[in-house]
């Protein structure tokens, strides 16, 4: 029964840690400030202690985890209210490149090497420091880059082209099943989707993936039985 106890304790603490991490509101590691990352690691360590040792009451892990969660909540509330506390907890963004010139003092102060900076520039498709107007080291450790105007690709506005409306694509069908979230977003019904597909000679069950935007642009990929054929269609949604 010890094995079952270990299993159940692991499941319980895993769900508990999941709940706490969701309550902190951070969704991915790149969202985390160094302090948040540290808190996450400490929570994981506290949970693992009680998972592995059945002599330790679960409360010995739960109470410190709850305490860390409360501290994190209080600090995040305080940092929302006070810029000084936010600066203390998260630091301030640092300009590493200004008008193509490396800020040596800032780089020394932040322990950011030229190699690190070049890596960051390359990962943003910038291969020449001279092209950079500003490179800013954000408080979560990422580097934001603003290229000089001369090196930015021209926009439709620069080229005086007609601006196209931006329409978000919604997932409409996945593995032959109509997605309710897509129907709601596009104000469509299941029957309407089936009718649209039928008009283009496609059966709903043969659709592997379909997405549509509010302008009616419909992208359909059929399943493997239909050679994963892709259909790029346009449907008028005005008659709905």
């Amino acid at each position, binding site marked *: 029964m010890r094995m079952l106890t270990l299993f159940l304790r692991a499941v319980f603490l895993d769900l508990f840690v999941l709940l706490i991490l969701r*309550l902190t509101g951070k969704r991915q590691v790149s969202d985390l400030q160094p302090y948040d990352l540290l808190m996450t690691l400490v929570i994981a360590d506290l949970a693992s202690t009680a998972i592995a040792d059945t*002599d*330790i*009451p679960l*409360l010995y892990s739960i109470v410190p985890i709850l*305490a860390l969660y*409360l501290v994190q909540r209080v600090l995040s509330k305080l940092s929302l209210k006070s810029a000084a506390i936010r600066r203390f907890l998260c630091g301030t963004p640092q300009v590493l490149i200004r008008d193509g010139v490396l800020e040596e003092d800032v780089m020394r102060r932040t322990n950011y090497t030229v190699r690190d900076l070049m890596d960051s520039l390359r990962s943003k498709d910038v291969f020449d420091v001279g092209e950079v107007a500003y490179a800013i080291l954000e408080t979560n450790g990422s580097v934001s880059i603003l290229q000089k105007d001369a090196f930015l690709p021209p926009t439709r506005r620069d080229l005086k082209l007609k601006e196209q409306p931006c329409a978000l694509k919604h997932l409409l069908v996945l593995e032959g099943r109509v997605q309710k979230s897509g129907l709601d977003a596009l104000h469509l019904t299941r029957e309407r989707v089936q009718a649209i597909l039928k008009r283009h000679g496609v059966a709903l069950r043969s659709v592997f993936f379909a997405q549509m935007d509010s302008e009616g642009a419909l992208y359909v990929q059929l399943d493997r039985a239909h050679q994963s054929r892709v259909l790029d269609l346009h449907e008028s949604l005005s008659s709905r």
Partner: protein
Amino acid sequence: MGFTVFRTAMTVAICLLLLALFIFPSRTLCRFADAADANIEQAKDALRRGDCARAQDACAALCALIGERMLPLERFLNHANVDALDASFRVAHAAASVRDAGAAIEALAEAQSILDRLRGIELFSPNSLL
């Protein structure tokens, strides 16, 4: 909006839970330790006077007490400490049954030291912080 309300409700619930955990476990431990202390003193006193029957009754009461409180104690105390306490009570009871006053007093002293240690760890004091 929904998540914010949920998070606020959870945070309040967590605060209440922590508050309860600051109060109830130490109260349970205090009550248990006081009852155990009284029985230990009673058993020691009886053993010193050579009244093994009374000592045996007091030790039996200790065994019954820890049997009764084992579950709530194990929820917030290290199980090894609770087991050691249980073992000491049983040794004292067995020794009192065979009229071995020396061994019984030794086991009771061991139980008392475990209780004192638990009080030192579990009850809040500036020293327990360190």
